[in-house]
């Protein structure tokens, strides 16, 4: 995948819509790339169909979502009721993972995950599945809408009021927790406000309480005196502070840079010049996030070498890429539990800054957990997953039989064939000589053949390339 030098990227070129060309053809690696970033991976059939459809049609489909969303949402909502009713954190996590796996609109879930990482709120402190679900619904409702509206609504979100202590913040004795993170992490970034701004803004957020299952504004506890925040003086309330923050020059570039890291690259920090056109578009559209997402995903830059395999797969992507690829009919509960070991326990980010992501996903232990989970999913021998995710069954479905067909099938499915020739040769050699390796006497020929396919699939999933997003 060719592209201009990292330093000298032309912003005009970068953000123009990608059109296939001889240098940058629409090929399987690009289809896989789009499915990884804008969804949670693809099946073999989806990859082939995407290749036929072309970039515009495929992106359009991913942006709009498929049919049946309302029905899907209704089904999931009824499950959510019992999760809230019984404060069931285990199934809360499984519920969202099931949404990611089965929603007709995976991009919406992916962006909701982006926002969960942005407004990183943890069940560990909130201790209420009902409130965590409420915040999830808020994030999803605004996922591809206006960031300004989402940020305003967040001031009185019950989970957030518990997480950052807003419910305890009272006139005369404000709690600074929310005001600080609003500026540092949610809207402006460090260095674009002062400690005095934090302390003054904290006064404006006083008065919110939780009564029963609702956030309620108690005017008695609200400090309605005059505050000076980011240079503006008045008797500001929560909405005013959000407005003032979003009037700052640093707000749009801060959010755009964060989305850049999510969609384009974790490896090279973008220059302000590169981001400027998007920041301007974002600000001028009253923070229309959906439009920003669309511009990025459609762009030349997105489909260039600057974006391709320049992220480490997040644990959620790692597991869902496998399960989607294998078309596994798998229960989400065990899968959601395994995410904790991999370092991305949904609804429980490690801190209000969210998951650091990038290289920090991979250390000795998490890499081993990933490889061992890939084995558990593909071996059919793990009690958690059983035979519901069987590579041998999938290969039969697509009529892949010879050693070479099988090697190429799994390499295409998971890596779109983009590995060193030597890697392919090694796998093929393994597959060929595996016929000669001794097997338990009680195995039939079919048993042995299936076992070889499962091992081959596991080996493909352990390739370093598969850790890249």
């Amino acid at each position, binding site marked *: 995948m060719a592209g201009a030098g990292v330093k000298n990227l032309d912003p005009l070129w970068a953000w123009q819509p990608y059109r296939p060309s001889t240098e940058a053809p629409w090929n399987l690696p690009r289809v896989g790339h789009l499915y990884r970033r804008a969804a949670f991976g693809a099946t073999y059939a989806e990859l082939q169909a995407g290749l036929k459809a072309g970039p515009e049609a495929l992106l359009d489909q991913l942006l709009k979502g498929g049919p049946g969303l309302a029905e899907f949402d209704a089904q999931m909502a009824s499950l959510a009721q019992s999760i809230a009713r019984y404060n069931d954190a285990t199934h809360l996590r499984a519920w969202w993972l099931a949404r990611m796996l089965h929603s007709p609109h995976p991009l919406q879930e992916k962006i909701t995950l982006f926002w969960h990482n942005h407004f990183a709120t943890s069940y560990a402190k909130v201790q209420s599945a009902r409130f965590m679900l409420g915040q999830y619904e808020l994030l999803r409702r605004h996922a591809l809408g206006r960031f300004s509206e989402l940020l305003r609504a967040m001031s009185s979100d019950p989970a957030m009021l518990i997480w950052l*202590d807003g419910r*305890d*913040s*009272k006139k*005369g*004795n*404000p*709690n*600074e*927790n929310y005001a*600080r993170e609003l500026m540092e992490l949610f809207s402006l970034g*460090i260095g674009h406000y002062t400690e005095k701004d934090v302390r003054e803004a904290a006064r404006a957020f006083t008065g919110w309480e939780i009564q029963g299952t609702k956030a309620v504004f108690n005017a008695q506890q609200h400090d309605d005196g005059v505050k000076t925040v980011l240079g503006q003086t008045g008797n500001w309330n929560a909405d005013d502070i959000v407005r003032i923050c979003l009037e700052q020059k640093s707000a749009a570039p801060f959010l755009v840079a964060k989305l850049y890291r999510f969609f384009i690259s974790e*490896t090279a920090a973008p220059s302000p010049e590169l981001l400027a056109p998007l920041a301007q578009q974002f600000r001028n559209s009253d923070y229309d996030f959906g439009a920003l997402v669309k511009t990025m995903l459609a762009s030349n830059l997105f489909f260039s070498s600057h974006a391709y*395999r320049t*992220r*480490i797969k997040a644990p959620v992507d790692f597991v869902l890429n496998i399960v989607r690829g294998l078309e596994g009919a798998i229960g989400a509960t065990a899968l959601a539990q395994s995410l*904790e*070991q991999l*370092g991305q*326990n949904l609804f*429980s980010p*490690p*801190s*209000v*800054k969210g998951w650091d992501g990038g*290289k*920090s*996903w991979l*250390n*000795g*232990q*998490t*890499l*081993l957990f990933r490889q*061992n989970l890939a*084995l558990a999913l593909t*071996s059919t*021998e793990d009690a958690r997953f059983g035979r519901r995710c069987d590579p041998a069954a999938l290969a039969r479905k697509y009529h892949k039989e010879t050693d070479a067909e099988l090697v190429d099938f799994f390499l295409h499915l998971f890596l779109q064939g983009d590995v060193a020739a030597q*890697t392919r040769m*090694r*796998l093929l050699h*393994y597959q060929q*000589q*595996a016929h000669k*390796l*001794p*097997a*338990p006497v009680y*195995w039939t020929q079919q048993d042995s053949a299936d*076992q*070889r396919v499962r*091992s081959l699939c*596991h*080996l493909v999933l*352990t*390739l*370093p*390339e598969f*850790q*890249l997003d």
Partner: protein
Amino acid sequence: MTANRRDFLKASLAGVGLIGAGSGAPLFLSRTAAAVPAADKAGAKDTILVVIELTGGNDGLNTVVPFNDPEYAKLRPTLRQTPAQVKKINDQLGLHPSLAGFAELLQDNVLCIVQGVGYPNPNQSHFRSMDIWQTASLNENVSEGWLGKALKGLPGAPSFHLKSNNEASPLALEGAPVRVPSIATLEEFQLQLAAASGADKKEQRDIIESAARSNGGPGLLDFVQRTASNTYASSRRLQEIGKNYQPQTPYPNTPLGGRLKLAAQLIDAGLGARLFYVAHGNFDTHATQAPTHARLLTQLSQAVTAFFKDIAARGHRDRVLVMTFSEFGRRAKENGSRGTDHGSAAPMFLIGGKVKPGPVGEHPSLTQLEFGNLKHHTDFRQVYAAILDRWLGVSSKDILGAEFSHAAIFKS
């Protein structure tokens, strides 16, 4: 050097291509020989450093308490610890009542308390301030940590990040010549394979390990390969360590207790381990601080005390140094939610057979506050400098970028 250690280092270094199969030993031996500190230095005999991060900002004022200061009671109307409650250090200072184990360590002359530690222009962001402590630099966008840099001077010294599930490896360890492995438990630090036979298993392992061999290319693929090689090599070696470690003292059944027990086990295994990093928290007590803070300090005190007793009983009393730090202390005056907001200066604890016991430096004034926060008089890099030069035997000036006078944390 024990055989165990030699094998471990060889395996780790071979894994990342630092040594070749044939030529490895001499290079590795010469590098290590150069790094051994001179015999008259404190770091001469394979000293061990255990760093405990108190994540979230520990309330230093309620950890080492100036219980007789009338200002203290005014600043902490609901959160104060009374003279009857604290574990007295002297007639002015006391430890939080939950630090019973630390009081014992103080009796045993192995606990040092550095008071009023911080840095100029304190930053009140958790994340920025944590970066400052972990990189030992006030500059932004520093990609290497102080311990990672120290490991450049201790090439191949086995080091471990003992982690919980939701925890990434710390910036403090970045920049090490060999990536420091993060480990949850020994049982889980293994590559599992399903194979038709032993021969099949070997074939699979060969494929996995050869794919992880880096050819030094650019970018993320190389990073993944190096991480993987190092991990496979370490895990193979660690599999041979006995699973049934019998501690000399009981450990509390807490996550921190489990991680420090694993540290003791790895120390005792004779790998030559020099550095451990563990995190404990969350100390971000903006509201209803008292029960949370008491619980966290109890866990800290019990785990560290058990660890030190265990390791001392095994004869490592003078080889081990435990250091605690937090990204900042908390606001002197409590807030309206029976909690405390972000502050600055706070104490650090150092535990070991060679530390100077008791408090070092004055408790920061409770009347001369800086924007409502305690003022520091000791830069944390003075503590780091003493540890780097005198304990680990590496040049603090190279790592910190300047000379810092040593905090008086060791017996002279």
